[in-house]
């Protein structure tokens, strides 16, 4: 019961209160990119959640080893990158050899696995001293945060592209940045930071 409640609380916190994509900009390039291809949402989100959960679940026990926890921060980064690369390569080889998936699918898998959002999860778990259950919840929450961000972006981008009242020089990427900034501001409200200090 404790395991499940830890997992759920962390997942909800990571996804909605501390939306990692909009509040901290992790994986924001991928979110913008996928927001322009809404058909890929489901698959891409599942991939991101999967890799975030797996990398978090592997790195948390490694971090808790006394020999590893004493290492400098930079060495931890190297360990996380190696774990992520290993998880991705093993998954890709299994999918390629056993399920014979296309190279296009594997390319998407690479984008989903090797991005700042997935690599940031083990760092966040370590800094927040999350338990194993919370680490898994954090990975799941990252996936949900990604789909929330991408859905909001997709919906906004669609409307912005049809709005003829936007001045010419603001059309395209400038207005997209402004839109992302407003979404980011909305989620920053949960953090309790002050805009004017």
């Amino acid at each position, binding site marked *: 019961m404790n395991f499940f409640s830890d997992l759920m609380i962390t997942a909800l916190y990571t996804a909605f209160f501390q939306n990692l994509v909009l509040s901290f900009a*992790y994986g924001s390039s991928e979110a913008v990119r996928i927001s322009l291809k*809404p058909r890929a949402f489901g698959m891409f989100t599942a991939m991101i959640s999967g890799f975030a959960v797996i990398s978090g679940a592997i790195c948390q026990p490694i971090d808790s080893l006394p020999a590893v926890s004493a290492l*400098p921060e930079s060495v931890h980064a190297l360990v996380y990158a190696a774990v992520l690369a290993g998880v991705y390569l093993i998954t890709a080889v299994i999918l390629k050899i056993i399920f014979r998936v296309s190279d296009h699918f*594997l390319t998407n898998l690479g984008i989903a696995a090797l*991005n700042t959002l997935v690599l940031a999860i083990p760092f966040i778990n370590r800094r927040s001293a999350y338990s194993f259950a919370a680490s898994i919840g954090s990975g799941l929450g990252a996936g949900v945060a990604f*789909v929330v961000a991408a*859905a909001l972006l997709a919906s906004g981008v669609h409307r912005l592209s049809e709005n003829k009242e936007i001045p010419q020089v603001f059309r395209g990427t400038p207005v997209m940045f402004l839109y992302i900034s407003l979404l980011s501001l909305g989620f920053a409200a949960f953090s309790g930071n002050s805009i004017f200090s």
Partner: protein
Amino acid sequence: MAQAKSKKDNILLKGAVIFNPVLIQLAGLCLAAAATSDVVTSLIFFIVFTVDTVVCCFLASLLFKRLPRWLRVALYLIIGAGCVFPFAFLAEKTGISLNARMQMYLPLLAVNSVTSVHCEQFAVKNTVGKALEDAFAVSVGYGAVILTLGIVREILGNGTFAGLDLGLDVRLGGLLMPFGAFVILAYLAMMLKWYINKYRPEFNEQTSVKIRQNEKVRRENSDETRANTSGVGLNRDDSITEMEFLFGNEPEEFEIFTEFWSPGVITAQDIAADMENLSKEHRQFSLETDRRIEELFANMDTGIDFETLDTVTGEPETEEPAPRDFFGGVFEDYENAENPADNNDGEDGE
């Protein structure tokens, strides 16, 4: 010479300014928005990013061209981690003032999308020299953006410049959050767009973000427009569209399109049109070549009877040549040769 210089300038201008990785290609947003809250950190990120991009593009162009794409992306992570690790370790050991948050963002440079996009879209398709030029140009473009962000955010958000207090009364703490970075990025993108519109209008089309719709949606939209203008139809229900977005069942297909980042949606018609053009050119080339050869031979009197010429030896054929196998041997040899296995019979047993 002047043409080569102009070509080089073109790569630099395109990579750094016209197709700026952040402002036009929307790549590397995480680090640009979250990690550039002061000048020193931005400078460190710029240096590490340059090393990472140059090394990745160099290796991609030199060694990775024959590897599958899904394997290359993992190699970029490993190379990136290898490039970033010494800097992170050095910063930790020498006590360079990287705050706790920056210490976390520095390793994330290993998976930055700018490097992998340029390795995939440019380096693996070009020579080492061009890949290095592009890597340098992209680093300059990315560096210019993150340094500008670092300067503006530190001055207006913290009231300092490189740690020195400027004594400003009002400090906009919000600029130190990613929200502030996106606002500044919006204005930088707007200025770049203005520059392209005014001074380089030939790139206007290529640098604008387009949302492409497939043929079915275009038809639906035009039907909808017709219905709306005639006053008998209603707009599509937006809430349904959002649900469709979430569950991925909608028929719409959008794709961002810039020159380097993505090839956009390539339809079967596009491929068929390309193939048609290619085959036309090929047919024309073949016909022209045949015509020239015929013309050449018509004007020559070599005394050779081409009808009976052996195309292998160049000698006139005297009899039907024996069929040859893949390695150039004659099939008859195999038929007449003794089976080597027969000669070994009994030897193994002795």
